[in-house]
């Protein structure tokens, strides 16, 4: 059922957010709340977790993009999210290249791996 469009949320460092905003995913909803969070060095983990939970609670967000090093910080909240929508995608940042062994989705599938290896 093609329904009303859902947004793509971003939780990342400044460069990641800037890039994706230029790609055109940013929006402020009715209450002037943005669908992205710029994480600086001094952003507290609680704030990141709060934003993540609020994104999950919003029903107009279909995908949440999150930098992998930030995902590490709130790993327990991400692992607790079992629903299929919104989809949580871990993306690499400039300083931290993509590390497949830390991805929560692939870890769930670890039991299924036979000949597959993280290439």
């Amino acid at each position: 059922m093609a329904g009303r469009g859902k947004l793509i949320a971003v939780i990342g460092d400044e460069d990641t957010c800037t890039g994706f905003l230029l790609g055109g995913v940013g929006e402020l909803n009715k209450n002037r709340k943005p669908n992205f969070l710029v994480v600086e060095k001094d952003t507290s983990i609680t704030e990141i977790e709060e934003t993540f939970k609020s994104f999950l609670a919003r029903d107009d967000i279909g995908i949440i993009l999150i930098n992998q090093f930030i995902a590490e910080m709130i790993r327990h909240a991400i692992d607790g999210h079992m629903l299929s929508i919104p989809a949580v995608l871990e993306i690499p940042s400039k300083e931290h290249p993509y590390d497949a062994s830390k991805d929560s989705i692939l870890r769930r599938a670890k039991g299924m791996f036979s000949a597959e290896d993280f290439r």
Partner: protein
Amino acid sequence: MSGKDRVEVFPSRMAQTIMKARLKGAQTGRNLLKKKADALSMRFRQILRKIIETKTLMGEVMREAAFSLAEAKFAAGDFSATVIQNVNKAQVKVRAKKDNVAGVTLPVFEHYQEGGDSYELTGLARGGEQLARLKRNFAKAVELLVELASLQTSFVTLDEAIKITNRRVNAIEHVIIPRIERTLTYIVSELDEREREEFYRLKKIQEKKKQVRERAEKEMAARLAKLGPIAEPANLFKEEADEDLLFE
């Protein structure tokens, strides 16, 4: 959990037929569910492989996008603050469509454009080309990420579906079918015992009848012996003169 129990039913031939039909139904159901679980697992593995490929590809695309961002920053100066302030409406959104695999509905994301580019005027001063390239790179990255998100949601949904189906298969195999089989053996044993009881009862009745008959015969013989030959009852054919006849 209750251990060795069976379905409470009155043991009769009809109940036996019904139970046999139920057993057949349970076995068919179990086989069908197993096939469904196999189909889902196959699809699951396919998706997993695709996810790994796409994730590696995504790593590269993101790296390229980050490079072009650095280039653009070098050329156009620091535009991050401007970009973040100028957010109002999203141009790229996603739609959730439903896809059906072996009876399981999977959500699939489809991205679409809406509205114009709100950052058209950024970089007008300098670095316009780098910024345009940067926008294109990130748009490409977004497309790839939407595809990846679809794969991921299918993955999670399939995982749940496989777990549920396997749970049902196990339940039928280890609980329902043994219960029905135990009920069948119980019915059969009860019917056998009833037959044996019936047989025994018949035999007993026959014995009793024989005894009664023997006793009756003995009594007859004793009475006959006491009365002597006169005890013979009146015979219509042997009669010579009948005193009731007045005229002959």
